[in-house]
C-alpha cells in the first residue's frame, strides 16, 4: 500500500505548478483589474487551460484531448483545486456532454462539438430537470415530435445552470409518450439561439442567479442533432451520470473551506479568548477534520479501484452523500463559530471575512440537492449496495 505517484507523474505535477504560477497569476490580475467582462475572462481562462494541455485529459487526441493517464488526470484536478484556480466555465460541457459524445456521438458530432467544448468557444448547459421531473427524472414531459428532418420541441426545463450565458443546451425530450417512461426519451443538442426558446434567470436561496428556467415553444431542432437512437436517450444520459465525480478535487475544495474556517476561528475573539481556544470549537473542528480525512482516504480507495479498472458503480453515491453532508457541517460550523456576528451582512464593516462564512453556508445547501438529492443517494445505496428491496413503485 502506498499513496505515492510515479516520478513521471511528480515531474508532470511540477511542470503544472510552474505553469499555474505564471498563468493563474496572469488570469487573476486580469480579473482583478476588471477591464474584461467576467464571462469573457472566464472563457479566456478556459482557453488558457486548454492550450496548456490541462483540459480534456481523458479525451482522444483527435478531438483536442490529451489521452493522459488516470494518475495524471488526478494530478491535474488536485493541483487546480489546491491552487484555488477557478474551474473551467464550461465544466458541464466538459464533464457531462463530452464523455457522452465520445461514447455515443456520431463521428460528425464529435468533430463538430468536442474541440469547441474544450476551448470554451461554445458554452453548454444541461436541459434535464423539469418542474415535474426532479428526482424522478425519467418522468420528464418536454415533447419532441419528428417533422421531416426536424424535431419540434415544446416544454419547460428548470435548474439550468449557466442557462443565461450558454450557447448550446443538451436536452432530454420525450419522443414516445406511449412507451414505458425510460424507453420514450431522446437526447438532443440544441442551439440556444433557435427561435422559440426563452431563458429566464432564477435567483437561488443564497442570492446568486447562476441557474435558469427555459421555455421551449415550437423549437425546431435539426434531426442531425440527435445523439444516438430515437428513444435511446435515457440510457445514454445514465451512462455518463455515474462518470461525474471521480478523483479528489472535491476533497481538496472541502479542505480549502476547512482551512479557511480554521483561520477565521483563530482570528475571531469570543469573550476573552479566541474562538479556536474554546473546547467546543476545537471538538467541532476536529470532527470536521476527521470526516475530511475519511473522505480523502475513501477517494484514494476509489482511485485505486479505477486504476485497477474496477468500475466505481454505486459506491460513488457514498462519496457524494458524505461529501455534501460534510460541506453542510462546515457551513453550519461557520455560523456556530462566528457567534452573534454570524448574521451581519457582508457589506457591513462588522461582517466576518466579508461574508465568506455566509456564502459558504448557502453554497453548501445546494450540494445535497443538485446531481441527485441525498435521499436519492440513500435509496441507491440501500438498493444497489445493500440489496434492500425497492422502496417505491416505478
Amino acid at each position, binding site marked *: *500500500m502506498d499513496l505515492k505517484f510515479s516520478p513521471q507523474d511528480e515531474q508532470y505535477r511540477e511542470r503544472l505548478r510552474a505553469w499555474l504560477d505564471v498563468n493563474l497569476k496572469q488570469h487573476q490580475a486580469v480579473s482583478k483589474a476588471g477591464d474584461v467582462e467576467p464571462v469573457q475572462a472566464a472563457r479566456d481562462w478556459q482557453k488558457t487551460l486548454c492550450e496548456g494541455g490541462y483540459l480534456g485529459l481523458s479525451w482522444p487526441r483527435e478531438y483536442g484531448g490529451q489521452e493522459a493517464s488516470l494518475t495524471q488526470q488526478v494530478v491535474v484536478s488536485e493541483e487546480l483545486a489546491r491552487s484555488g484556480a477557478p474551474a473551467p466555465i464550461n465544466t458541464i460541457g466538459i464533464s457531462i456532454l463530452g464523455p457522452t459524445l465520445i461514447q455515443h456521438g456520431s463521428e460528425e458530432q464529435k468533430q463538430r462539438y468536442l474541440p469547441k467544448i474544450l476551448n470554451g468557444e461554445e458554452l453548454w448547459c444541461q436541459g434535464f430537470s423539469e418542474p415535474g421531473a426532479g428526482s424522478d427524472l425519467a418522468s420528464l414531459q418536454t415533447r419532441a415530435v419528428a417533422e421531416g428532418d426536424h424535431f419540434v420541441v415544446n416544454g419547460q426545463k428548470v435548474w439550468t445552470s449557466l442557462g443565461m450565458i450558454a450557447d448550446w443546451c443538451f436536452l432530454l425530450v420525450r419522443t414516445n409518450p406511449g412507451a414505458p417512461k425510460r424507453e420514450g426519451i431522446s437526447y438532443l443538442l440544441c442551439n440556444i439561439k433557435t427561435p422559440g426558446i426563452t431563458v429566464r434567470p432564477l435567483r437561488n436561496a443564497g442570492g446568486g442567479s447562476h441557474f435558469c428556467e427555459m421555455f421551449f415553444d415550437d423549437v425546431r431542432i435539426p434531426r442531425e442533432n440527435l445523439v444516438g437512437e430515437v428513444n435511446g436517450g435515457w440510457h445514454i444520459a445514465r451512462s455518463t451520470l455515474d462518470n461525474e465525480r471521480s478523483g479528489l478535487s472535491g476533497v481538496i475544495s472541502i479542505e480549502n473551506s476547512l482551512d479557511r474556517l480554521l483561520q477565521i476561528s483563530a482570528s475571531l475573539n469570543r469573550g476573552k479568548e479566541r474562538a479556536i481556544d474554546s473546547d467546543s470549537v476545537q471538538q467541532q473542528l476536529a470532527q470536521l477534520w476527521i*470526516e475530511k480525512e475519511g473522505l480523502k482516504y475513501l477517494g484514494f*480507495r476509489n482511485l*485505486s479501484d479505477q*486504476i485497477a479498472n474496477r468500475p466505481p458503480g454505486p459506491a460513488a453515491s457514498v462519496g457524494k452523500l458524505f461529501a455534501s453532508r460534510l460541506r453542510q457541517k462546515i457551513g453550519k460550523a461557520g455560523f456556530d463559530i462566528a457567534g452573534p456576528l454570524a448574521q451581519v451582512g457582508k457589506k457591513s464593516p462588522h461582517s466576518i471575512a466579508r461574508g465568506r462564512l455566509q456564502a459558504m453556508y448557502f453554497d453548501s445547501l445546494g450540494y445535497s440537492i443538485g446531481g441527485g438529492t441525498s435521499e436519492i443517494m*440513500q435509496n441507491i445505496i440501500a*438498493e444497489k449496495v445493500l440489496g434492500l*428491496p425497492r*422502496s417505491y413503485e416505478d
Partner: protein
Amino acid sequence: MHFELSEEQNAIYDLVVGFMADKWSGDNRRQGLDSYPCQIPGELLREVADLGFYGISLDENSGGGGEPLLTSALIAEAAGGGLFPSLLTTTLVAAKALDLCDADSNWLAKVISGQQTVAIAIEEPNGCWGLDSIELTPQMDGQGGYLSGSKILVSDGDFAQVFLVAALLPDGPAFIRVNANAEGVEINSMRRLDGQSIVELEMKDVRFEQDDVLGDGAILNQVYDIWTVLIAADLLGNAQSVLRMTTDYAKERQQFARPIGSFQAVAHRLADIQVDVEIGRSLLYGACLALEEESDEATALVSAAKAWMNDLGVNAAETGLQLHGGIGYTWELDIHLHLRQARSNAVTLGDSKYHRARVASHLMSPEY
C-alpha cells in the same frame, strides 16, 4: 498509488472471518456474561495460536510474518465482527510492544506462539485516558526498584502471566515487567460490560530489576497508537457485522405485507451506516499506513479512526437493536452483545471526545 488490500491481506481476512464463523458464536459470549470471564477454551486457544497470527506484523527477523500493521488490524476487525474475545487483539499488541522494546527473543517467541499471555496495564483510577495521565512512579534503587499503586481496566488480565506496567521513571515513561504471581501483586476482576476480562492490578512493594524496565516514552506512544487502531478495527468489524445482520433481517421480516427494508425509514438508516462503515474503513487503512510510514500525522489519524469508530460502533449497534424491533431487545439475539462490546471498546483507550482533543492539538500545532 495503490490504496487497497493485498491478496494476502484479503486471504487472511477471509480466513479469520471463516474461522470465527466456524469456531465461535454469540452463545460463547453470552456464557461469559453469566459466568465471567468470557474465555476461549484451551483447545481453541491452541488453534488460534497455531494460525500463526500473533506475530503477523512483526519483522521476519523477529520471528514474525513480515506483514504491515494493517494485516493485524484486519484480524482485529474480523475478530470484533465475530464477537471473538479481545485476547487475540491483546496478544497482537503485546507481541508488537515486546518487539518495539527489543525484548528478549525467547520471551517474544513464547508470546507469539501463545505459550504466555502478556497484558498491558496503562490506565489508572483517575478517570482519565492516555499516557499523560500516568502517575504511577516506582521507588528506584541502584539495581531496579519497587512498584506500589494500582492499574485498572487491564484487558485480559485474568489470563495474563506477565504484565507490562506503564510507569513514570526518572527518564520518562517506560514499561515495567511484572509477573502475575510476583509477591505484592493482587489481581481483581473488573467484569467488563460485555463479559470480557478486565482487571484491577494492585501492587504493593513489587520488586523489579533493571532489566525488567522496557521501552521509553516514544515506544509507549507507539504502542498506545497501535493498540488504539486495533480497537478501532474491532469496532469497525462490529459495526459491519451488525449492519449485515440487520440488513438480512430487513429483507426477510414482513410487515404490512412487505419486507420492512422496503420502507425508507428503515432503508435510509441502514444506508447511513453503510456510508459510515466505508468512511471508517478508509480511516482505518489511512491510520495504519501512517503508523507504518511513521508520518507526522500518524497520531492524529489514529485518533481520527478511533473517534470515528467509537461513534460508528455504538450507533450501528443501537440502530441494529432498534430496527430488529421486539426481537432486538431480547437476550437471545446477538445485537446486545455487539452493543456491549461497542460500548466497552468506545471507552477503551480514549472516548471520542478524548481523541477529538488529540486531533485538535494537531490542528493547533505550528506544523499544521
